């Protein structure tokens, strides 16, 4: 009987396979081939025929080594996360930033007046519902779970939160807050806190609600794509 373990080890680690295989993988694959080989013998094949039949289970060893390494390193999961979360989320975040600029330009030509800011903000929230829907739809099409679809839709709000968070941790702003505590007359803290609260509500909370509202129709049923995922079989 061939030394299956040695044979698998040699073939998996041959040049250009690009993968150093763990011994337990080699052992497991060797056991599979051994079982296959013994089944061949039980079915009346000669030793040579049974060995050839077992070896025919793998046409391309370097490719198998790469596929196994990819699967064991979590490459499948990473690829899936990129397709169902990062891509739709990032595009949604870019649109969230880019669209208000366009809206602002259009609105300034249409509603020049004291209420223009409200129109622009309202228009932005309306567009955010479309962006939320778009991100969730994209994620669902790519086979994203409900959690990934929600996260993709909320990605722009998370980006704004991160930006605001980095502003709040800004040393200069901290100094202003500290200064306001010690000399309220100079920088009244009561004037700073509403600004921060307004930013949180108007810049994160309401946009998040708008994004989620747009995403809702695409969060209902589990996607067919998640079980019909692309890949090798």
């Amino acid at each position, binding site marked *: 009987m061939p030394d299956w373990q040695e044979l698998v080890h040699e073939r998996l680690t041959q040049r250009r396979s690009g993968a150093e295989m763990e011994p337990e993988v080699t052992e497991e694959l060797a056991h599979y081939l051994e079982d296959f080989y013994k089944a061949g013998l039980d079915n009346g094949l000669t030793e040579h025929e049974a060995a050839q039949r077992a070896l025919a289970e793998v046409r391309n060893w370097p490719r198998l080594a790469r596929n196994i390494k990819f699967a*064991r390193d*979590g490459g499948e999961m990473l690829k899936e996360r990129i397709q169902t979360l990062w891509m739709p989320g990032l595009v949604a975040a870019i649109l969230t930033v880019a669209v208000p600029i366009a809206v602002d330009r259009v609105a300034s030509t249409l509603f020049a007046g004291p209420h223009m800011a409200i129109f622009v903000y309202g228009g932005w929230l309306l567009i955010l519902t479309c962006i939320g829907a778009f991100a969730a739809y994209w994620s669902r099409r790519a086979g994203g779970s409900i959690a990934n679809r929600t996260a993709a839709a909320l990605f722009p709000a998370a980006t704004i939160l991160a930006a605001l968070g980095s502003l709040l941790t800004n040393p200069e702003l901290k100094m202003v807050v500290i200064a306001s505590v010690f000399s309220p007359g100079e920088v009244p803290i009561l004037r700073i806190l509403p600004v921060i609260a307004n930013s949180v509500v108007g810049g994160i909370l309401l946009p998040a609600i708008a994004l989620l509202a747009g995403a809702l129709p695409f969060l209902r049923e589990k996607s067919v794509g998640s*079980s019909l995922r692309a890949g090798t*079989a």
Partner: protein
Amino acid sequence: MMIVSKIKRGSAEFAILSVLAEERLYGYQIAQTIAERTAGELRFTLASLYPMLYALEKRAWIAGAWEMTRAGRKRRYYRLTPSGRRQLAPMRRQWDGFFRAIQRLSGAAHA
């Protein structure tokens, strides 16, 4: 050919999770059980089975552990995890729906 690849991938995952839902099996047994139950329509090779087993294990839908067989051989047995079981139920519904849809299409084509 994207859809063929997707269907192959999805059906392979479903087949593995389905057989492991009933009992724990090692790699060769998984391939044999699927081939027997599908009358040879679905057949795994070593090259198609193991990358998928490891990917499913990485997702924690299945878990593998070395054990001794009744014949005294060391084998790595796989079992379905609670997370895998949760994935399987909606997968079954989706595949049932998918095949019903295909049958309706096929029926309409032959009518």
